[in-house]
């Protein structure tokens, strides 16, 4: 078990310090770079806070598309390797038309990609979900 502060705490503190103490002292031509650093820290913090949950949900959806038994032992296996393998398969199958309408899997894959994309936006650009009226 790691001691506190956690990764989240550190990233949040670094961002706060940057915006409150560093940004006001910056000349105009350096402000954009500082804001980009703050944005990178905010994204990193959200990714860290979300942890493995979005990846587990993506894996479950991919397993459902391919009729695989859900992998219950995610802690013991490498979800990244399995995700990579199934996404390579999915990308190939989409390109060759395997999930074209009216194929049975069309709607399932459409909703999988939609959900994965929303999860990515939650980490990278949560503001967009609000302006789009999704959350």
């Amino acid at each position, binding site marked *: 078990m790691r001691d506190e502060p956690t990764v989240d705490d550190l990233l949040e503190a670094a961002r706060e310090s940057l915006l409150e103490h560093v940004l006001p002292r910056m000349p105009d031509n350096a402000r954009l*770079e500082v804001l*980009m*650093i703050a*944005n*990178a820290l905010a*994204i990193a913090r959200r990714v860290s806070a979300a942890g493995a949950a979005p990846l587990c949900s993506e894996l479950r959806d991919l397993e459902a598309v391919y009729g695989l038994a859900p992998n219950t032992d995610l802690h013991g296996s490498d979800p990244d390797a399995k995700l*990579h393998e199934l*996404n*390579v398969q*999915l*990308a190939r199958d*989409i*390109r060759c*038309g395997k999930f*074209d*309408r009216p194929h049975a899997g069309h709607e399932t*894959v*459409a909703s999988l*990609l*939609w959900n*994965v*994309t*929303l999860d*990515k*936006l939650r980490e*990278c*650009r949560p503001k*967009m979900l609000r*302006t*789009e009226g999704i959350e």
Partner: protein
Amino acid sequence: MVSVIDARPALENFLTTAAEANRATINEVTPLSGGTVHENWLITVDIRGGAEQGTTCFVLRTDRAVNLAGSLSRLREFEIIKAVHDAGVAVPEPLWTSDSDGPLGREFFIMRCIPGTAAANDIVHDESLGGPHERLAERLGEELARLQSITPASRKLPFLRPRPEGAAQHIIANLRAYLDSLTVPRPTIEWGLRWLELHAPPPRDLVLTHGDFRTGNYLVDNAGLAAILDWELADWGDPMEDMGWFFMKFWRLDETGKAAGGIAAKEPFVRGYERVSGRKVHPDELTYWEIMANVRWAAISIQQAARHLSGLDRSLELCLTGCRTAELEYEALRLIREADAQRNTHA
């Protein structure tokens, strides 16, 4: 490769010869924002003798580091600007060019400086920049029509290659080839490309396209549009290609309700385009090219981040561009859903 500042004496000799002057003295060299790929420099020059006699401002444009795959060299970009300038498109007057044996050890060209700003954030939020924004959008539509008067039949730009398979299928094949070069699979982009492959409208005759026609790539002053900038992605393409790109949500910044580049609704832009080009804009075709734009930009955003990740061109800006791929994928998926729902209603 010599920096523009270090090359000052050699540049002065170059300018003296190019301007057919007795002597050119550089007073000031200032970097302008050139984006992530190019360098633009404002140079103020005292010229004695010749047609340019007096103190004049020029812009020197050269490569920053690695050239973006698929983009034109500076010498070819110069040829494009010359051709569109001749066709009456608002661009900075292209003046002189040098190859990599010249003073910078890399290609560059020099244009006449036009005052104004291209900063997207300022233009979108400041109604006084660029004149009334509805008129600005209409004018941009007119300029787009004007640049499309250059076609492969005009035999003007022989280095641009024909696209016998049609513009859409050409882009789809290129993007797939790019995805194949990546180690990370991109099923959402594949989904977009498959949809684009199945729903491509009948190919139209090819025209010259700008390739990155958007807010941020045109210069305005207080009166209106001053010039269209950044021609390195110009190519033969579909007449609707640049318009779909211009309307992409990404370029609207937080003015998402103003579909024409965050400055106005689509209507004035389309009106200006239709009047000057004589072509009719079909909404379904336009939606198709908006989806194409989002899918293409999604792939380019991955490419931008890869330039950083490869170590060739380390930049936080490029790195963060890779974090925006999902926005483009989202918009492509959303537009596809909408287009499919509309087709089902009509079926």
